[in-house]
């Protein structure tokens, strides 16, 4: 398959930054495609993991962050487990997601960054997850109000959704962790 690379102003593209973030040497990838063969979403997403690796070799820039697989990746880590060169491909995906958020790449179908934010906000606030608040924040953002609503009555009846948040977690420590994470991000900039 032909790969077209749009050259960025940074001539090195993203590869050095990704290597730095993940502590891996991506040049050892020799395109055996075991990652892609085992990837559960490679058939659904446009560019499979081996292609992402190749694009990085060819000095792809920010356009890589718009690839569907960046947010369709399910973090199952099959790619990392099967790489004969021991490349942590799943960590590369995590790094791409962090860059996509930093560089504000356009949100994709399903808006996973919004979901992650909604999830972590409830953790920051309550120390533990609180599904109702998380779901509300996510639905408000995506405007997909009707998805899964037909399941709510039975889930409530089966107490699979808690009406009230748990307040038993050590919220003080959790908040300090989030604060430190922010400070570290600021220091990097």
């Amino acid at each position: 398959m032909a790969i077209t690379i749009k050259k960025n102003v940074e001539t090195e593209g993203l590869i050095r930054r990704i290597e730095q973030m993940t502590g891996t040497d991506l040049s050892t990838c020799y395109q055996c495609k075991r990652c892609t063969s085992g990837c559960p979403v490679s058939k659904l997403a446009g560019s499979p993991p081996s292609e992402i690796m190749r694009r990085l070799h060819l000095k792809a820039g920010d356009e890589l962050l718009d690839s569907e697989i960046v947010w369709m990746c399910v973090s199952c880590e099959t790619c990392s487990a099967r790489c004969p060169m021991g490349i942590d491909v799943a960590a590369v995906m995590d790094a791409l997601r962090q860059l996509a958020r930093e560089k504000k790449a356009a949100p994709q179908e399903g808006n996973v960054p919004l979901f992650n934010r909604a999830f972590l906000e409830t953790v920051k606030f309550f120390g533990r997850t609180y599904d109702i608040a998380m779901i509300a924040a996510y639905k408000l953002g995506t405007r997909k109000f009707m998805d899964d609503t037909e399941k709510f009555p039975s889930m409530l009846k089966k107490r699979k959704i808690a009406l009230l948040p748990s307040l038993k977690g050590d919220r003080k420590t959790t908040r300090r962790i989030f604060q430190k994470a922010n400070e570290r991000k600021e220091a990097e900039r």
Partner: protein
Amino acid sequence: MKYGYFPGCSADSTARDMHTSTVAVAQALGIELIEPKGWTCCGATAGHQTDRFLSVALPAASLAKVKDDGLDMVVSCAACYNRMKVANHEIQQSDEMRRAVADALGRDYDGSVRVRHFLEVLLEDLGIDKVAALAKHSLGGLKVACYYGCLLVRPNEVTKFDDPENPTSLDRLVNALGGEGLEWPHKVECCGGGLSMSRTDVVVSLTDAILEMAKASGAQCVTVGCPMCQINLDMRQLDIRKQMGKSHDMPIVYITQLLGLCLGVPAQQLGLEKLMIPAGDIVKTIGSAA
């Protein structure tokens, strides 16, 4: 036998049954589980997809709470188990990370608390023979597709759980209880995990393939050790029915629910009524088998 026990956030919501069945089984087997006071969320997938430090410090906060008691941390959720093991690994690998985490927690944590899945405690500490000897009922030849998913087995150099491509821990337990752990190829395929809400389409497609294979392999039920796998495989069957017109009608039960039935724990305590796809036939089979 005394352990620290981390129920995980889903114990209060979608996986209440995983929690109650773990606690009931532990009690029946004489295993003491102690919840550390003030445990907090491990950050799950959202954590590691967002920020590496966050993904290490969040689980470390709970691990530090059992450190001084010298207890192992037993976890029933495969996702929390995975995040805790990775956090320990990263803290042991990097002094910089250890210092940053200590700064956030207000105390040093060296990454040394042993993290165990409840299944590991059953197999390694108690032993399969002892568990089987305590069983009052047999699984009565029940054909079970044992599904391990991702988070127990990967990354294997960190979790060190069983064989990463063909694990047999669940199968060995099922066989010892008089069931039949099936040979099937989807043991460690992914169910779609945390994309359940954001990319339901992806999860429906992945779970359908897994359920299809379980059925083709002759399974009467699928057993799991992860709340994400459970809810995706169980609840998304309603979407598969609606969108594809296929009824798999495959009960997805936690291994602790199956074991609990064998140990004679009342079905109510095991939360079996919480399953979206009912497991009534299985309960009847096990209840009537000697």
